[in-house]
């Protein structure tokens, strides 16, 4: 008499019962209110299906109701971790439709603010990732530096999170007196501090083991699923909006685009995404240094009427936000209200790849993958 042992999942035999875990929306590592319905066989996931919409605030609908100038503070809420680039997306939309030329100094102010904001966002991503993998110290160290950037941005525009600094046609306020020296002094310390944060984690054996080779995204898959920003570059696709389609004054600056090479594991794994993001912080600070060096004199904002009415038509604006390529589509019917606004963000596409990536990962890996994609819930739902 022979005994047949069937593998788990094929029914009968020694198959174990699959467990359905409801991860989120109140789960410590879902970065806001994401929800995953995880089907797991013990610790190994069969499938993780993302369920979004818990932070949906209909920002696109709001845009149709509040007018061109009034929508600016709402764009802060699209991605409140890196609000400056969201501001910029909306300003660029309106400027393109209205045919407004932004003064040079205004553009430089935008770049300084946006790059500081990008560093700020990457720091939070870095810290939260450490926290998710179980290292508690990098989080506070990252926030320590982030708070200082927030202080700088607060001095620039009066708010720490929802900046509302940009206006259609430029920026709201010029750099305050002495701001340049302050930023340079900060960057001197900041670069050293970021180096130290990297040393604390990047080579740590446990950290590498947890991330290297986990959930690799090959370049073709990354492009097919529309990954954006550091997530795309980690997969070896050398594409940065600031380089490929230079908007604003990014043509004036020299900076490198960190691309994943699979240095510790496979190409496009969690470690590549982590290290790309960390290296981008240094590039941001490099851009800020150059911008401060080169900033010209002049007005910071073009003359824009208070009841701004751009011509009818539509436009598509793409810029590099902290979480990657941010697509703004805006249609105008020539009135003082936008006709339709659509925002496609990096987190949204990163979320959509999750179901395809999850089979075979462990539950602990899912946490690492969410963190490595740097998903921010408001940006997914808008």
């Amino acid at each position, binding site marked *: 008499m022979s005994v047949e042992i069937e593998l788990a999942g094929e029914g009968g035999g020694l198959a174990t019962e699959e467990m359905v875990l409801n991860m989120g929306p109140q789960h410590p590592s879902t970065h806001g209110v994401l929800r995953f319905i995880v089907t797991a066989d013990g610790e190994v996931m069969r499938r993780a299906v993302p369920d979004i919409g818990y932070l949906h605030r209909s920002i696109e609908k709001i845009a149709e109701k509040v007018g061109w100038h009034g*929508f600016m503070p709402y764009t802060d809420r699209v991605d409140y971790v890196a609000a400056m680039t969201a501001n910029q997306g909306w300003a660029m939309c309106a400027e393109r439709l209205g045919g407004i030329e932004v003064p040079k100094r205004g553009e430089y102010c935008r770049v300084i603010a946006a790059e500081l904001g990008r560093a700020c966002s990457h720091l939070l991503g870095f810290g939260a990732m450490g926290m998710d993998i179980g290292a508690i110290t990098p989080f506070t160290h990252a926030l320590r530096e982030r708070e200082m950037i927030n202080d700088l941005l607060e001095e620039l*525009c*009066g708010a720490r999170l929802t900046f509302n600094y940009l206006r259609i046609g430029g920026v*709201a306020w*010029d750099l305050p007196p002495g701001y340049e020296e302050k930023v340079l002094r900060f960057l001197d310390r900041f670069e050293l501090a970021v180096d130290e944060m990297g040393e604390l984690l990047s080579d740590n054996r446990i950290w590498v083991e947890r991330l290297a080779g986990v959930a690799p995204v090959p370049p073709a898959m990354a492009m097919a699923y529309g990954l954006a920003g550091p997530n795309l570059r980690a997969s070896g696709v050398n594409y940065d909006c600031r380089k490929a389609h230079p908007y604003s004054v990014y043509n004036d600056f020299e900076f490198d685009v960190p691309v994943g090479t699979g240095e510790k594991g496979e190409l496009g794994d969690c470690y590549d995404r982590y290290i790309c993001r960390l290296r981008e912080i240094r590039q941001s600070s490099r851009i800020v240094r150059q911008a401060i060096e080169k900033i010209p004199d002049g007005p910071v904002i073009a003359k824009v009427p208070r009841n701004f009415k751009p011509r009818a038509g539509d436009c598509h604006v793409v810029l590099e936000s902290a979480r990657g390529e941010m697509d703004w589509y805006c249609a105008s019917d020539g009135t003082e209200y936008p006709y339709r606004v659509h925002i496609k963000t990096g987190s949204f596409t990163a979320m959509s790849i999750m179901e395809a990536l999850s089979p075979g990962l462990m539950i602990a890996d899912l946490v690492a993958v969410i963190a490595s994609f740097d998903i921010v819930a408001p940006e997914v739902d808008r």
Partner: protein
Amino acid sequence: MSYIGNITDTFSSIFEGMSITFSQFFRPAYTVQYPDRMPVRVQDTLPYRYRGILEVDLEICTGCLACERACPINCIVIDAEKNKETKALVLKRFDIDMAKCMYCGLCSEPCPTGSIHHTREFEGSDYSLESLVRRFVKVPVDAYKPKKTGENDPAIVPILERGMRYIEEFAQPEKKAS
């Protein structure tokens, strides 16, 4: 060989990490102990541009309703009426719902006198939503009328100076551009 390599790599990388965390014992704490153990109030350390709770100086409010129109969230309500006899604009109501306000600063930009402005006060917690509505007009008052010769009322001059300084700093974008 990679077996021993793994072990030495693990120990050396942990050694490095531990030395970084240990050096922290000799470094200062960066956090402050809000609110009671600070040498200066936080409010006093905030930059001038800080967007805190809104304040209105009724003495210099011209009743132009620019702020009400600029507010994207409709949290400002102003009732202004022409007094038939004196031909002056009378402010009957100037309410701001601070619970709704998103501190965007769009209202203070078009203000011609700097009457509506952000303070550096941010502690606004209260027990009910209603008490977060700031009602500035207690009794109807006449709106301020800028004089061509410059202000000379000693009661209003300092307030107007403050307002003008505020405008200077915040500079209505389109004015500064021209």
